[in-house]
Structure formats: structure tokens, C-alpha cells
């Protein structure tokens, strides 16, 4: 999706074959990445069309259906209050994917402009921003996310903000490094020589050229954010009951592991598949977008 929206920007720089078309052609050759892309699309469809796909209401309890093993009526079984596990997995995709999307949007929205600023302006702005990035990266990812959401208060929105803020320094550092490398290239020199203002050079000449590594990082960051949301919900700091989330389902499932193991299997498997797909997609994008890779 992101690839196509960036097309018009990069099209100007195209010589023989458009670089995005080349990247897409290379990505298509990688089986793992393509399978991952299909799985991602399926998960997105599952989240968007949840009300039409889910066989039952994900919050409807039934005392006659408490902790029933998988059957034809309930493929993934039922949970401790008789809710259908499959329906909760389908609706749970909403919490996970929106956490991935929202928190990475926060990280990109804040991190990329700050990274551009630090890398392009240099000087004291760069020094201050870099120290803040160092400081944030010195606190382990999940610990910072837990701490932030603890101080903000437990809710899915706050968890997304916490994960977004925690993911920001990586984007600042990446954008800064890429900007500093691009800044000394001939095409930037040329743009400066013809009298373009700084903001225009940064946005129109530097930014489009650093999009590839950002795309790779975004895919990996979404994987990280999905796992982080699940972790926060597992700890009770994310999605609050009875709304379904894969992480909080695992939390409950742990208490019933000896009586109802299916309650624990499926939510974890869903997290695993979603995270694996974004990781594979990120790896595939890295190989496809790397100009050194022939």
C-alpha cells in the first residue's frame, strides 16, 4: 500500500526502470515475503470485516458453554465465561493491528521530521536530539513502554501512545543517519546550488531518497508494536476486558491452562502469525529495496 502512495514522488527520479517497480519485481520473487504479504492482507481484512466474519458476538457469554473444547460449532472452543474463542481472535485483530498502525504512525510522524531536522540542521539541535534519543534507547523497549503506560493509566489508547513514543527514537536515529548521508550527495548539492530553500531540499530531495530504509523499519516496527501491545495487554496495561485482545486472552488463558489449553494456543498463534508476517515482509523489503542487492 505504502509503496504505491510513494510512487509519484520517486517517479521523477526514474531513469530506465522506475526504482519502485524494480523493488516490487524483486519483492515478488521472494516467496516468503509474498506469503507474508498475503497473511498481512488477510489479517487486515479480518480486522476490517470482523462483524461479518465472526461466527458469534465476541462478548456474548453463555454459562452452558463454559470452557468447551473445539467443536464444529465452536472451531477454537470457548473460554471461561462461554465466549467463542474464534470470534474473539477475529475481533482481537482490531486491537493488535490498530496498535501496530497507530503506534508506528506516531513514531514515524514524530521521529521522521525530528530526524530530518537533526540530520539536516546539525549543530546544537542535533546534539540535543541525539542525547534524548540515546537516553530513550538506554531504557529497554518494553520496560519504557510499560513505565509510560503505567504512568498514563491502563487503556488501549494509552498503550498505543506508550508504544508509539517508545518506537520514536529508532526512527529519529535512522532518519538522521540517512539524512546526513544524503545531504552530501551531488543531487542535494545541485538542488542547493540552484537556490532551493532548506525546507524544500529536506522534503523534496532528501526525504524521497531515504524512504526505502524507512519502509523496512516501519514493517519491523509494526511487528514490534504488535508484540508490545500483546505484552501490555497480557500484563493488564492494554486493552481492558471484556473487549477482546490477543494479549489479554492469553492472560486469562494462563489461569485455565490445565483445564482449557485451547484458550492459550490460539491467541498466541495469532500474535505469532501477525508478527512473523511483518518481520518477513520487512526482511523481504530490505532485500528488494537495497540497491547493492542485484
Amino acid at each position: 500500500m505504502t509503496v504505491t502512495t510513494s510512487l509519484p514522488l520517486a517517479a521523477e527520479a526514474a531513469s530506465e526502470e522506475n526504482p519502485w517497480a524494480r523493488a516490487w519485481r524483486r519483492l515478488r520473487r521472494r516467496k516468503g515475503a509474498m506469503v507474508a504479504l498475503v497473511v498481512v492482507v488477510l489479517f487486515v481484512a479480518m480486522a476490517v470485516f470482523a462483524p461479518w466474519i465472526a461466527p458469534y458476538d465476541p462478548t456474548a457469554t453463555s454459562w452452558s458453554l463454559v470452557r468447551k473444547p473445539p467443536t464444529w460449532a465452536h472451531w477454537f472452543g470457548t473460554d471461561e465465561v462461554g465466549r467463542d474463542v474464534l470470534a474473539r481472535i477475529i475481533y482481537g485483530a482490531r486491537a493488535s493491528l490498530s496498535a501496530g498502525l497507530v503506534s508506528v504512525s506516531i513514531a514515524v510522524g514524530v521521529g521522521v521530521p525530528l530526524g530530518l531536522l537533526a540530520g539536516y540542521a546539525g549543530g546544537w539541535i542535533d546534539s540535543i536530539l541525539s542525547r534524548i534519543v540515546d537516553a530513550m534507547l538506554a531504557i529497554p523497549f518494553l520496560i519504557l513502554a510499560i513505565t509510560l503506560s503505567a504512568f498514563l493509566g491502563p487503556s488501549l489508547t494509552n498503550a498505543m501512545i506508550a508504544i508509539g513514543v517508545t518506537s520514536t527514537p529508532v526512527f529519529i536515529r535512522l532518519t538522521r543517519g540517512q539524512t546526513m548521508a544524503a545531504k552530501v550527495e551531488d543531487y542535494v548539492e545541485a538542488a542547493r546550488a540552484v537556490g532551493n530553500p532548506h525546507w524544500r531540499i529536506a522534503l523534496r530531495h532528501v526525504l524521497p531518497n531515504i524512504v526505502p530504509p524507512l519502509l523496512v523499519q516501519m514493517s519491523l516496527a509494526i511487528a514490534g508494536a504488535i508484540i508490545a501491545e500483546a505484552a501490555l495487554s497480557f500484563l493488564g496495561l492494554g486493552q481492558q476486558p471484556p473487549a477482546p485482545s490477543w494479549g489479554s486472552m492469553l492472560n486469562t488463558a494462563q489461569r485455565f491452562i490445565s483445564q482449557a489449553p485451547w484458550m492459550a494456543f490460539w491467541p498466541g498463534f495469532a500474535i505469532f502469525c501477525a508478527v512473523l508476517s511483518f518481520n518477513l515482509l520487512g526482511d523481504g523489503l530490505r532485500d528488494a529495496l537495497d540497491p547493492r542487492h542485484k
Partner: protein
Amino acid sequence: MFGYLVQRLLQIIPTLIVVSMLIFGLQQLLPGDPALIMAGEERDPKVLAEIREQYKLDQPIPVQYVYWMKGVLSGNLGESMRLKSSVGSLVREKLPVTLQLAAMALLIAILIGIPAGIVSAVKKETGWDYAANLFALWGLSTPNFWLGILLIFLFSVTLGWLPASGYVLLSEDWKASLATTIMPAFVLGNALAAVLMRHTRSAMLQAMSADYVRTARAKGLEERRVVLKHALRNAMTPVITLLALDFGALLSGAVLTEQVFTIPGFGKLIIDSVFNRDYAVVQGVVLVTATVYILLNLMADIAYVLVNPRLRG
């Protein structure tokens, strides 16, 4: 070398200051009267007044920070409202547990990750390489709390071989201690092994294409010696320094793993403090974690320069 050391040491000071500011600043995120929130269940006006006095809550924020920092620098990380003991002593009590877990996880990760990385680099683009890469993807994508629950189901519930939760001190009964920590250590090590495998693979691939490896081969050395003596030695340098960076991931993982296996370590201390609104403990623990992480990175950097003759200068 000495100049580099001084420069590196000077560099971490501003970082540490910013870390302390960030952690102190967290307090400002709390909605409402911080004294009321920090007191938790306690509503006694005397306690509230004590908290206000202790944290200088009636003073402007920069002044509060200076007081807090003064305490931290003199070794006073604050007081736990709930446990009525100092954060410093809590950290000293819980840290060894997590360190035992981390050391075991590290061992497991090294035993799996490095051989897997070597094999996949030496047998590049074969079934071995493919399998090792699949293993790495599995390790990177499995939520460790899920893996923990699955292991509990298999080894504790179904087979009854290992206890599902709890912890025994290593000094008390080492067999029981290992039995309580082997599953969580494996869960932690599994993820780290994946990272380590990837690092080792790429470092080995680079080393294997270096001139000195070609020379070793040209001399007629057997392949085993070329790989293990010549390539591996050089490839391990970046891998070991990268391990220091993975320490943070290990601590993050420990938070979840200790929660799943009810192990009273550092991670569980953070979570329990979060849920009991024991914010001083959270701040203290995070500050200690970040400081340890920064110092470990410093040591890794210095070690890297020490073992790399080209950088020694």
C-alpha cells in the same frame, strides 16, 4: 586509547542526565495530585504531608528534580510506599534472581545461536541455512509469554516434570533452583539465540570472504581449521559487542517471563510496583536499568577497541 576512554566517559554523562530527567518527568504524566496518587490506598493527611515534604511537591518542578537527583546521587533511590523499604534494598534483593535467569538464558542462547549461525554461514543456501533462518524467524516472532505458557502446559501440566511457577535460591538448593529456572531461561534464551544466530551468520559470511581466509585455504589448511580458527575468531568480535546491546532485550523479556513463571525478580518488581502504584520504585528500577545498560555498552565499546588492533591506534 586513554583519550578515547576519557571521551567515551564524558559522552555518557549528558546521556545519563537526560535519562534521569526523562524518568523524573514521568511523574508529571500522572493525572491529579501526585501526593494522593503516590500514597496509593493511604489517605492519612499526615502521610500525604510527608510525601509532599519528601518529594518537595510544593516546589517548582526543576527544584523537585534537583532534590530527587541529590538523593539519587547519594544512593537514595527513594522509598517504596507499599513495602516500606528503600528502593535500593529492593533492587539488591531482586537483581540476583534476574541475573541468574539472564546468565542461564545467555548460556542457552550462545549454545544454540552461535553454532546455528556458523553452520548457516558455512553451508550457505543449503537446507541447513534455510533451517537456521527459519529458527531465527521463529525466535524473533514468538511472544515469549506464549512460549512460556505452552512450556508450562507441556512440562508441568502434561508431563509433570518441572514446577510451573515459583523460585528457589541457588544457594539454598541448586537442583530445585535449576528446575524452577530452566523453562524461563529457555524462553528468554530462545529469542536471544535467534538474534545471536543472525549476528553470527552475517559476521561469519563477511569473515569467510576475507583475504586471510583465502590465504588459509591456499596454504592447504583443512576446512574445519579455516572455519573455526581463522574465520570464527575474527567474526566473534562484533558478535560479542552486539551481545551487550541485546542485554536490554533480555531485561524486557525478563519482565514477561518472570510474570508467567511467578519468579520474584527484577521484572516482577517492576510490574508489581506498577500495579500497586508504587511509582518511586518504578522510577528507581528504571533508572538502575538504564544506567546498567549504558555502562554495559561503554564496556562493550572499550572491549571492542581493545580486541581490535586496527582501532587501538
